[in-house]
């Protein structure tokens, strides 16, 4: 009597599950019989690995003596669960589990997920000269493996989260328990819990939802594809968030200086490393202020320069029929178009675009007298020094800032540039990344992340 009741409820469960999974062409529902008993298999063929299903589930069924033995065999797999509530079962099926229903009423969920991800490929957006070239890939497990292999410590913890009502993207929050600032961790967890979205497709997107203010100019988290950068930051007490299906990790909290660190700095001789870092900061200064300085010097404060240089610029600009700021903005926009275009083009055409755009157009424009020679030099310097910044996120920010400086230089000349830089410095110092001051000159006490900054705790 009890047996039939159980069987009835089981039948209900299965029909309920099937109802929810109706109109799915990839749903597979098999009933296999042996020794007078029946086992039902339910799974989604697109999510499950058919090899696993065949080798681990179907083949042993016919090799085993009886159903009890087979049931024990199934239950012995790690990650094999026994569930009853239909919504849970559906969720598991959508993750790539196969459901096995026995006549006895037991229903097992067997993890047979097929994970399609590219293999561990060399890093593309953060290349370095010497050093490891592995990068994270789209599978969370592989990425975690890459970190764990480089950081073999029991204090390395990874907490799992799921974000996105539809996408159910898996996250792993990784940190070194002994070194992490627990205030930062708490803040991060709270912010993760507050994220209410349908679909999370990329680590960069997560970065946007984690930010405290909507409008900001500078990235307050780093996006990296390099396991060695992640591990280096872990050892500094930072938190890494790995996002499944993206191949990128988010690092929090970060400071301004982190964006100018390339991973091969550590591999260089100390002095060379400092030199390289200096070059990067110089590049930052050049790419932000050079166009504005050109505007200020040629239109406002030409008396500041030595007479020879002032004459040189004026002579070079003799044929140019419009004010200097128009010239600068025109050329810089050309430059932006070129960068954007070569980014999206297939590799084979990309080089043609740069040649035509950069070389031919530049030469023709100066010969036609539309822009000055000095302007062409300047634009190239600006573009090249922009690429000196190792992390792309900061590079994009810097690309935008220079226009703001051009505007103040157009209005106030050199005076405006100095004031603009001052406001920029003040803005930078007012930023906080998860409560940590973002911009300081001396960051030597950065390692002691466990302590809060100077006084009261700041919201950031």
């Amino acid at each position, binding site marked *: 009597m009890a047996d039939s009741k159980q069987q009835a409820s089981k039948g209900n469960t299965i029909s309920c599950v099937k109802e929810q999974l109706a109109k799915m062409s990839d749903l597979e529902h098999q009933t296999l019989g042996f020794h007078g008993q029946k086992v039902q298999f339910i799974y989604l063929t697109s999510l499950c690995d058919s090899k696993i299903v065949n080798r681990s589930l179907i083949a042993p069924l016919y090799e085993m003596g009886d159903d009890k033995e087979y049931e024990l065999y199934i239950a012995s797999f790690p990650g094999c669960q026994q569930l009853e509530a239909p919504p849970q079962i559906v969720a598991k099926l959508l993750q790539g589990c196969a459901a096995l229903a026995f006549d006895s009423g037991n229903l097992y969920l067997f993890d047979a997920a097929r994970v399609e991800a590219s293999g561990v490929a060399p890093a593309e957006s953060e290349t370095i000269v010497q050093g490891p070239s592995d990068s994270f890939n789209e599978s969370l497990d592989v990425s975690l493996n890459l970190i764990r292999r480089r950081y073999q410590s029991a204090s390395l913890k990874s907490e799992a989260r799921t974000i996105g009502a539809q996408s159910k993207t898996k996250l792993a929050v990784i940190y070194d328990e002994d070194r992490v600032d627990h205030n930062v961790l708490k803040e991060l967890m709270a912010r993760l819990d507050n994220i209410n979205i349908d679909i999370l497709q990329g680590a960069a997107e997560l970065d946007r939802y984690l930010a405290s203010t909507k409008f900001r100019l500078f990235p307050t988290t780093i996006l990296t594809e390099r396991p060695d950068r992640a591990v280096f930051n872990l050892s500094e007490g930072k938190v890494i968030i790995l996002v499944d299906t993206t191949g990128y990790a988010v690092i929090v909290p970060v400071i301004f200086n982190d964006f100018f660190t390339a991973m091969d700095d550590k591999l260089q001789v100390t002095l060379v490393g400092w030199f390289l870092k200096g070059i990067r900061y110089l590049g930052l200064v050049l790419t932000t202020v050079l166009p504005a300085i050109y505007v200020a010097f040629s239109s*406002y*404060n030409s008396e*500041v*320069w*030595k*007479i020879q*240089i002032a004459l040189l610029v004026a002579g070079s600009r003799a044929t140019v029929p419009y004010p200097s700021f128009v010239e600068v903005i025109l050329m810089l926009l050309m430059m932006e178009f070129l960068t954007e275009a070569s980014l999206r083009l297939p590799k084979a055409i990309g080089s043609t675009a740069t040649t035509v755009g950069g070389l031919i157009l530049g030469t023709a424009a100066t010969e036609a007298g539309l822009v000055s020679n000095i302007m062409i030099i300047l634009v190239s310097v600006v573009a090249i020094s922009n690429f000196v910044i190792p992390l792309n996120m900061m590079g994009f920010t810097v690309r935008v800032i220079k226009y703001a400086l051009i505007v103040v230089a157009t*209005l*106030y*000349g*050199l*005076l*405006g540039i*100095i*004031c603009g*830089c*001052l*406001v920029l*410095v*003040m*803005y930078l*110092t*007012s930023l906080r990344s998860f409560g940590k*001051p973002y*911009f*300081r*000159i*001396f960051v*030597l*006490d950065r390692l002691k992340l466990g302590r809060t*900054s*100077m*006084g*009261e705790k*700041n919201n950031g």
Partner: protein
Amino acid sequence: MAKDRYFYYLFLINALLNIVNFVPKGLINGRFDGSMASIMVAVPLGLLFTYLFGKVMGKFPSTGVPEIYNQYLPKPLSLPLLLMFAVLWFIAGLITLLAFVEITLRYISMDVEPLTVLVLFLMVVCISMRINTESILYGLEVLLFLNFPIIGYILFKSLLNPQFNWNAVLEIVTHSAHWPSFGGVATATFVFSGYANLAIFNRVLKNVNFKLLWLLGISGFLVLLTSFLIPIGYLGTINVDRHVYPWFSTADVLRTKNFVIERVLFLFYFNYLMLSLASTILHWHISLNMIKGMFASKKRKKPKRSFDWWVIILFSGFTFAAQTANQFKLDQFGQLFLDVRFGGEGILILSVYLAYRRRKQRQA
């Protein structure tokens, strides 16, 4: 503790800014009547003030003056005091700002309307003064770090120049044996006034460590000597008082051959532009916080966000009104402020000490 350096930055920015705030002018006016002696007196006096205020603020760790007043002084006393200090700090910033508009017109761009320049400066200051106290210190550090090498270069350049007349300097030094004047001492102690900024910055700076007080003394003394004597060396003992901003005229004497900029004046100007704006941001930030302290009640710790904007409108209004004053009046006003400020510092130290006594009584 590394954090101590921030206290020295507060001192340093004020010390460097003396050039804009009419200190050399004041000292030069009395160069035959006891300015040297006043400097000698001002150094120990300034150090004493610094020490006393640092000590008494150390009794109230991580609190600013408004909180101390509101807690330990009766309301009829605390309100006028806060108002007075808000006004004093506002005027300190105002003088720097107006003087710098003056300098801009005189030395850099003669053809620009003063109002346009003022609007730019006000925008920079008003945007920046609202950021939190700790961030202002970080910003200050960055700016000082950027500007220090240039100041060092200019000093180096000016002392090694063969045109520099050491005899003129020596002549002024022979006038040392003279009674110091109140005005002279008040003017010279301005260099040490940076400590007073602790009134608000004590919120984020823990106990200040006075091990390096001697460094303050030496650097303050050297700053005073350079800002007083170098213009005399270049402009002459008699003619020097014809210049309202002697240091900018001095910088214009210098020339450099090894750089794209030929006149040192430009380097000096842009250098001081940054420092002056930073100092104004600092002073107005304190003034803003004093005003906020006046309106802080027990129920509501922090006033609304829009409050800041009302204060900004108020500050800007006063600045535009004050901008109509001519250079002569501004100079006089600046000198007067230096004297008033000296008295204000005394009141500041005494009032915080009073609050400390009252706390002790309450605890007893």
